């Protein structure tokens, strides 16, 4: 067993060491050293994770400390690992996608002056994410939680000379901090009420607190578990970009595309989903919390999908699709179908990373033009990118037998079978979301890969918002010059696409039965079937992956998806005038979508502006005027005036002074003797 423990330790440390070496000494090393070292680190971590996964399947789990971080009073904070089916699966997914992104980056960033810095950051991210998923306690979870936030901050602002990038990274960090604010309070409540931050210790005593109440506002007893779960969920809302803390994710597209794939689609943003699934023994104790989770997820799934419809920036379409899919996972959590949420997390990691990397390949082929209105017909020039993107899109919209179908359909069924308040709305939202997803995904697909070749002409530069072109610092091109044709990307870019396309195709079919119904998460994810029966019923309806795929052809979701694809085909390929007409006819709705429901301007005005306004007033009136102006300088002036009078006492005669001193001493002493 000791050998395995060394492996556990090596998995996060190898990427960390690679990141540190490349980050500190990258300048002194040849350029290739950056990717060789980091790929070696992450590659080894992936192989070891696969070994651990195999070991876990064989029934060997582990839970133990690495070192004691801190002790205070009776509380001990430890750094430790919990290796079970959930963490082992996450480790494999994280290291695999990370490895693919590392390879891809060789091609994508090869001209960038920040080459080694970029590799250092993504390896550091891999370390942080591994620490998060491998943790056996809340403290380390919080460490990983914030550390991935840090790397996300560094990578969104990777091109630090761009005003939009450094605006976006500050925004991302602060919005995440709002989530962490709730998260930390939740952790504090756990420690205070249950006396430990160790997962197993907390989970084992949690049932005793099922009926406990807490009066945060005197006279209003609230269920303790609801309070804890909601506070923790605020953290998940930040990290996993749920409404209303979703605002940072679309802007995070300012970062280079490889990290949009790794961090802002496949791994980091799923941390919130992972966390809630990990905390299932707590969430199961509060139906109120689960209802809230479900409704928030449903709102995110549907309303963020709408925004994807009107985007013309290839990365933003995929970003809104990510938001919407995160909403799906959250709905599954709310329905107590934690394993389904994790299942969708896994399939989504593959096909969304694929879609983002495919988008990046398109962007390279287009010489860093991201506007899909300038594309069209690319399938001729970029066949591998085209085919793999098609696989990704089909998986995303839930085509039977592809990975996304199994996970998404299970979510829809779970929402249907759930009985908690809000499940009706959630079912409607995820169902309608299927149509929306299919529509915007294939609108993008058709506009990019099919139809008229619109590149190489005069561009219409209507970038959304304040969005600048990629790699402005290094690449003088922007878009294709007239007559220029797009070109397929080098093999380091296409290989990861193919490698990701394979699991996007088959992983759902292979994994659904063992993961959802085969007891894979036994003892890890806890569901109370009496109160939350959705998962229980789901198991009854399931008769094998093949049957589920066949059954889909008679079901509503596939009809919705197909009509979404058909409609997008009609609008983009046949009658492109209709969307324009709709845009004019329903201008009001278009403006609302264009402004992203006004969240950004509201936050900018009320929260950012409000804080600055209050700060300014506190400073100007509180500090400068009242404390300094009136009290401090006022006292000085008063003393100045008084001393004018008292100056008369300065007679210069020693006996006057001696007399005053004696009297004064007597007064003080009598005062204190009485006291």
């Amino acid at each position, binding site marked *: 067993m000791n050998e395995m423990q060394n492996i556990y330790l090596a998995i996060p440390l190898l990427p960390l060491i690679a990141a540190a070496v490349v980050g500190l000494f990258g300048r002194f090393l040849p350029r290739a050293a950056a990717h060789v070292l980091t790929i070696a680190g992450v590659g080894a971590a992936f192989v070891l994770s696969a070994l651990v996964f195999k070991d876990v399947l064989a029934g060997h789990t582990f839970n133990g400390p690495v070192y004691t*971080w801190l*002790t*205070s009073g009776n*509380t001990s904070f430890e750094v430790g690992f919990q290796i079970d089916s959930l963490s082992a699966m996450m480790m494999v997914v994280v290291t695999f996608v990370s490895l693919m992104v590392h390879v891809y980056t060789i091609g994508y960033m090869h001209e960038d002056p920040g080459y080694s810095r970029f590799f250092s950051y993504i390896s550091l991210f891999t370390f942080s994410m591994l620490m998060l998923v491998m943790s056996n306690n809340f403290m380390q979870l919080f460490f990983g939680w914030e*550390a991935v936030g840090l790397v996300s901050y560094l990578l969104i602002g990777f091109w630090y000379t761009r005003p939009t990038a450094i605006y976006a990274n500050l925004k991302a960090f602060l919005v995440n901090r709002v989530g962490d604010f709730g998260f930390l309070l939740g952790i*504090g409540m756990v*420690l205070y009420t249950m006396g430990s931050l160790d997962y197993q210790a907390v989970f084992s005593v949690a049932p005793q607190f099922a009926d406990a109440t807490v009066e*945060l506002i005197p006279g209003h007893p609230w269920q303790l578990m609801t309070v804890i779960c909601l506070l923790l969920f605020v953290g998940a809302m930040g990290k996993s970009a749920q409404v209303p803390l979703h605002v940072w994710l679309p802007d995070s597209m300012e970062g280079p595309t490889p990290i949009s794939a790794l961090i802002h689609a496949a791994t980091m943003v799923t941390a919130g989903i992972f966390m809630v699934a990990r905390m299932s023994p707590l969430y199961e104790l509060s139906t109120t919390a689960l209802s809230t989770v479900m409704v928030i997820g449903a709102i995110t799934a549907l309303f963020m999908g709408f925004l994807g419809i009107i985007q013309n920036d290839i990365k933003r379409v995929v970003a809104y699709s990510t938001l919407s899919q995160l909403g799906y996972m959250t709905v599954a959590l709310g329905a107590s179908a934690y394993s389904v949420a994790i299942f969708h997390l896994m399939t989504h990691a593959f096909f969304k990373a694929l879609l983002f990397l495919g988008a990046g390949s398109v962007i390279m082929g287009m010489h860093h033009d991201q506007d899909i209105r300038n594309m069209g017909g690319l399938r001729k020039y970029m066949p591998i990118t085209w085919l793999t993107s098609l696989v990704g899109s089909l998986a995303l919209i839930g085509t039977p037998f592809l990975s996304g179908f199994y996970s998404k359909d299970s979510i829809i069924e779970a929402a249907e079978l759930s009985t908690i308040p809000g499940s009706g709305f959630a079912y409607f939202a995820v169902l309608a979301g299927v149509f929306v997803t299919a529509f915007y995904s294939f609108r993008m697909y058709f506009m990019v890969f099919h139809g008229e070749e619109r590149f190489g002409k005069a561009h219409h530069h209507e970038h959304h918002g304040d969005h600048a072109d990629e790699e402005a610092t290094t690449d003088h091109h922007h878009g294709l010059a007239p007559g220029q044709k797009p070109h397929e990307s080098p093999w380091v870019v296409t290989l990861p696409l193919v490698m990701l396309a394979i699991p996007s195709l088959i992983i759902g079919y292979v994994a659904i039965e063992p993961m959802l119904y085969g007891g894979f998460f036994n003892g890890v994810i806890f569901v109370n079937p009496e109160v939350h029966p959705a998962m229980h019923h789901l198991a009854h309806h399931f008769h094998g992956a093949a049957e589920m795929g066949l059954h889909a052809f008679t079901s509503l979701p596939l009809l919705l998806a197909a009509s979404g694809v058909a409609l997008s085909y009609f609008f983009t390929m046949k009658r492109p005038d209709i969307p324009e007409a709709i845009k004019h006819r329903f201008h009001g709705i278009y403006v609302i979508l264009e402004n992203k429901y006004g969240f950004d301007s509201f936050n900018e005005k009320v929260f950012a502006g409000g804080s600055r306004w209050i700060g300014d007033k506190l400073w100007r009136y509180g500090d400068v005027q009242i404390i300094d102006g009136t009290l401090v300088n006022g006292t000085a002036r008063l003393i100045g005036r008084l001393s004018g009078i008292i100056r008369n006492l300065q007679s210069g005669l020693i006996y006057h002074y001696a007399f005053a001193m004696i009297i004064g001493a007597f007064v003080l*002493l009598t005062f204190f003797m009485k006291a």
Partner: protein
Amino acid sequence: MDYPILSYSIWVPILAGVLVLATGNDKNANVSRWLALFGSIASFLVTLPLWTRFDRNDGGFQLQEGANWIPAFNIHYHLGVDGIAMPLILLTSFTTVIVVLAAWEVIQKKVAQYMAAFLIMSGLMIGVFSALDGILFYMFWEAMLIPMFIVIGVWGGPNRVYATIKFFLYTLLGSLLMLIAFIYLYHQTNSFELVDYYELQLPMTAQLLIFGAFFMAFAVKIPMWPVHTWLPDAHVEAPTGGSVVLAAIMLKLGGYGFLRFAMPIAPDAANYLSGFMIALSLIAVVYIALVALVQQDMKKLIAYSSISHMGFVTLGMFIFNPLGMEGAMVQMISHGFVSGALFLSVGVLYDRMHSRQIKDYGGVVNTMPTFTALAVLFAMANAGLPGTSGFVGEFMVILGALQANFWFAVFAATTLIFGAAYTLWMVKRVYFGDIGNQHVAELKDINKREMLILGVLALMVLGFGIYPQPLTEVTHATVNQLLTHMAQSKLPGM
């Protein structure tokens, strides 16, 4: 290796300072520099055995030294340290080395005097942390201010006289009240021994008055809202070294004073007034953070940030649980490194650009990438990122505060948002973006000396962030003892 460590810790830097002073004028400035460096390193080395020889299971005073000083008034030269004082002494001697190095080629006028001031100040501050006699403490307390006034008054900015006088007036009132409290306590016990005061039973009125007197002395130093306005002015006018010592050590003297005097001598008053102290602390955390958000001057911003962070120290102390109190200790030590590093970073920029205004910068990363990497690390530590020392104290205090009252923790935890907002907004405007102007374009990245200073601090910040256990280990016993002591009423007849 058996020597009176504490006396050496106090007098080696003072003697070194006197020696540096003797090298006289700027003709042999290099002699002064090297002598000061050796002096500060020697002073740091003599304090190191404090760490190794300290008994971590003993919560009382250790390594005591005593001698009669003024027998007529029963005044003793009595030194000793416990788990609260010891880390602060090491922080002091460490910071002095940093400050001497930081001044190396920056200070060109009156080099010997500048270096000497810091060496002497270091010895006096260690005296404050180790004195166990009221009068001895008071002497060190007042004496250490003199070099600081000189440093700000001589090497300071254009408005230094106003800043010095404001600093002086603020401090003077509190100090005098503290002296009266000591005289009163002497009157009660016929002793200036601290341990006698700990045992002394006092009626509530007396406790409240004593607590009030100490409060005036220590709250100004920390500084707590609303007696904080001297600090931004002092920082803005002080030279870099002055700011570093002010932030890294002098502010801690206030926190130390509460733990050493106000709380154990007047525990009932401390309990009685804890709500008031917590309220002031939370105001500092929230109000000052908002004020920091709108500052245009980098030093002012960091000064306000310091006040906000020190709010965690007082909050942790007055919630009376081990997590809070040890968190306060960790926060003090961590803030010593982080705020020191932040002021040094501003110094690095100021030496090159002669401006502290945020608007005069922009895109520094383009010309100073190594420096920016370090500056971002310190900024993150200031924003309390896990993995840096800045996180540990805040985390502990927030968790501790929640056990006292949920809403204390809510207010305290806003620092997650506001602390990140003011720090990273400054980082964005100063370091990121396109090159702001011609002067930024001509900046040179940090040299080896600056790299060494900031690098060492970076290691400390990361080290204590990843493994804070050694730090809390030394404070455990003392904090437990203090909390036990605080829980017992000292009202007569109880």
